[in-house]
């Protein structure tokens, strides 16, 4: 009898409390959801999969684990982490694209293996590997070619990271123009899409791009 009365009074007080929503709140929510904890593969396996040394993997894992104790990054955490580097703009879209690129098995979370494999390609891969990875980033629907719309999305996300306070003032059509330049440079056969071969070929011809690719050698 006592338990029933207590439940009754609990539900009564919940009715009086206007902020209680029947649909979402329930007794079960009071219990903490046990967090998923994932451990990465062993160090040796990761060393085989990537081109990092053991020490580098250790450093990377420490940083990774510090920020994501559960061992996996979901998209929101990813966005939050990335946004800390760009205080002035909105980096969520670009972070979203990055997340898609890192999450190779498309399960909605980036584990340490995904993370470190991606980093290995970017930081320790050949120039061609890097260009491939970049192409994969741009190709949003992974169909092997970049359309103008895809490129426009990417471009907008990059420009969003600049924020409002820029010099010169950000024009509305700056991304679109930039996309035009890009396509003129990359699209050799003028068919409106950029394929992987066109992309790699054009990048190899562009000295700036080749130099900037070399920047990544010294990141870690």
């Amino acid at each position: 009898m006592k338990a029933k009365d207590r439940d009754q009074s609990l539900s009564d007080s919940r009715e009086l409390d206007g902020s209680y929503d029947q649909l979402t709140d329930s007794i079960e929510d009071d219990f903490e959801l046990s967090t998923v904890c994932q451990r990465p593969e062993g160090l040796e396996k990761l060393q085989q999969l990537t081109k990092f040394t053991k020490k580098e993997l250790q450093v990377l894992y420490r940083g990774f684990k510090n920020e994501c104790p559960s061992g996996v990054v979901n998209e929101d955490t990813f966005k939050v982490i990335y946004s800390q580097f760009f205080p002035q703009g909105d980096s969520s879209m670009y972070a979203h694209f990055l997340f898609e690129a890192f999450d190779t098995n498309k399960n909605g979370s980036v584990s340490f293996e995904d993370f470190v494999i991606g980093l290995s390609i970017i930081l320790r891969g050949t120039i061609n590997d890097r260009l491939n990875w970049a192409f994969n980033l741009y190709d949003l629907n992974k169909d092997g070619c970049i359309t103008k719309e895809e490129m426009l999305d990417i471009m907008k996300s990059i420009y969003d990271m600049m924020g409002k306070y820029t010099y010169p003032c950000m024009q509305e059509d700056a991304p679109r123009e930039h996309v035009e330049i890009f396509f003129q440079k990359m699209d050799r056969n003028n068919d409106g899409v950029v394929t992987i071969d066109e992309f790699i070929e054009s990048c190899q011809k562009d000295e700036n791009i080749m130099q900037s690719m070399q920047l990544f050698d010294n990141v870690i």
Partner: protein
Amino acid sequence: MSQKTNIKNGVGAEVKLVVKVFDLLPSPPDGVTMAAGVAAWLPFARAAAIGWMPVANLPMPIAPTDKNKRQDELIVLNVSGRRFQTWRNTLDRYPDTLLGSSEKEFFYNEETREYFFDRDPDVFRSILNFYRTGKLHYPRYECISAYDEELAFFGIIPEIISDCCYEEYKDRKRENAERLMDDLEDSKDSKLPNMTFRETMWRAFENPHTSTMALVFYYVTGFFIAVSVITNVVETVPCGSTPNQRDVPCGERYTVAFFCMDTACVMIFTVEYLMRLFAAPSRYRFMRSVMSIIDVVAILPYYIGLVMTDNEDVSGAFVTLRVFRVFRIFKFSRHSQGLRILGYTLKSCASELGFLLFSLTMAIIIFATVMFYAEKGSSSSKFTSIPASFWYTIVTMTTLGYGDMVPKTIAGKIFGSICSLSGVLVIALPVPVIVSNFSRIYHQNQRADKRRAQKVQKARLARMRISKTGSSNAFLHSKRNGMLNQALELTGSTGEDRHLNKTTSLIESQHHHLLHCLEKTTNHEFVDEQLFEQSYLESALQSLPSRSPSLSSQEGITGTCCSRRAKRGSRPSSEAHKPSHMHPHTHNLQELSAIHIQCGEQRTLNTSRSSLNMRPDESGGLNCKSSSQVTTAIISIPTPPTNNSPTSPEAPPNLASNSSAGVVKVSAL
């Protein structure tokens, strides 16, 4: 190799542009780096920049090199014997603290190869945890002033204490501050700097324990208040009867004596009131205060009584006035803190009291009605009307039960009992609320006002906001300096080692490099909010000059948002320039850079070197105001009016010829 030469050519011009834009920036506070854990993700963020590279049209800036590239190592911190170990990188996350900067080298012990600090190891635990987790916690058992000292020693501002511990910290700090203030006041009371006589009097009135005179005055007034009240009471006691009359109250028997007593009391009160009025710092505010109103009400009846004659008509009113004399008892509240608190409590519990009154009134009306109709039938019933039943209901609900009105019918008795039962409940409910209010206010009276805490909270948030914007400001600031540093190093003039500000940590410089890459990718620059609004305003206010055709394709009025500023900046040194050079000042950055891509322009090394070596003795480098002359002159290197459109630029040959003119200008300055 080609990278290096390209940078030599490119960076030189870009440096000057950057300086030009940012020489108007105020120097920002030291940048606060990003959160601890996130610093570990910086390599990832830099790797993610791969997405920008293929779309960028400009070359990327050089990356900061890790000059002393050492493996991450453990360092030992010996704090009063207790050894703490952590990675060196962990401490480097906050370079503007003691442990994160080179200041800790002062504490390095060569023999034991560890850093020794002669400080409290318990507090050091939370400080080190701050580096590890990015959150600073305040341990509750720790003394607040000891903790503050440790924070100050290690160069950490207390405002970054995380929210879970911040309330506690602020409460303790406030208590401590009040305690200090009380001590200060006590010590201050003993010494009296030359205060005016008026101020002395006021202090004497407010704090009776300050001087003997004040104490004497305090007791005398208290005594006379008591005397006055007792007189009023005794006045009405029948004391003895003359044989021929009935008992008369003492007041009528010893009229003269009582009158004299009353006069004396009123004299004292009047003098006191006038003295307070004289001494009050703000007379208007004093006259509006509750205590002074009570004083006035206490003494006024006497004077009115003096004025009025013993007229039959007004004697009734006169008697009423004497009632007000009882208000003299309220003057005791100056003498009693508790009384003041009680009054304040009642004032602050006004809503609860109001609720009590309201619910009682509802109940009274309901029950009075019921009782009236229940007792209507019985004969000789006292319940003649509903208002008459009110008296019964009140007496019953408050469980007084005088018994002058009782129900006689059975229904009346039933309802009467229900009435008394419910009365107990209704009255008992709001009382605990009032009691708890009183207790809370009493305790609150011991502490400072909570409003001060709100202000402090706002100040804290403001300070954190400043330090957060400091991180973006740090980028803008270091762009100004960092690029120059790099350019200086590259052009081989590192001999003078003109580092323009404190060396930024590697992490910071890498972060800034990342932001710079983004700027290059999008061909826009980060600016300060103020600057942005300035330029926006200028463009909105002023009309556009004649535009070069290729530019006109781009904009409305916002297109030239920053152009005007560029123009204004260049005007002072533009006397010798041909007018045609004025036009291309718009979109300087884009144009210069665009030319760099499209023409592969080869600027002579001389240009960059000569301008950079311009002022060898300036420690501030090219930041200071006079440098604006240098930089704007360089900007006036005419650029053909191009934009990012792929159309070929007009008259590239002009550039070659004009740039030499630009060089001349530079060296002339």
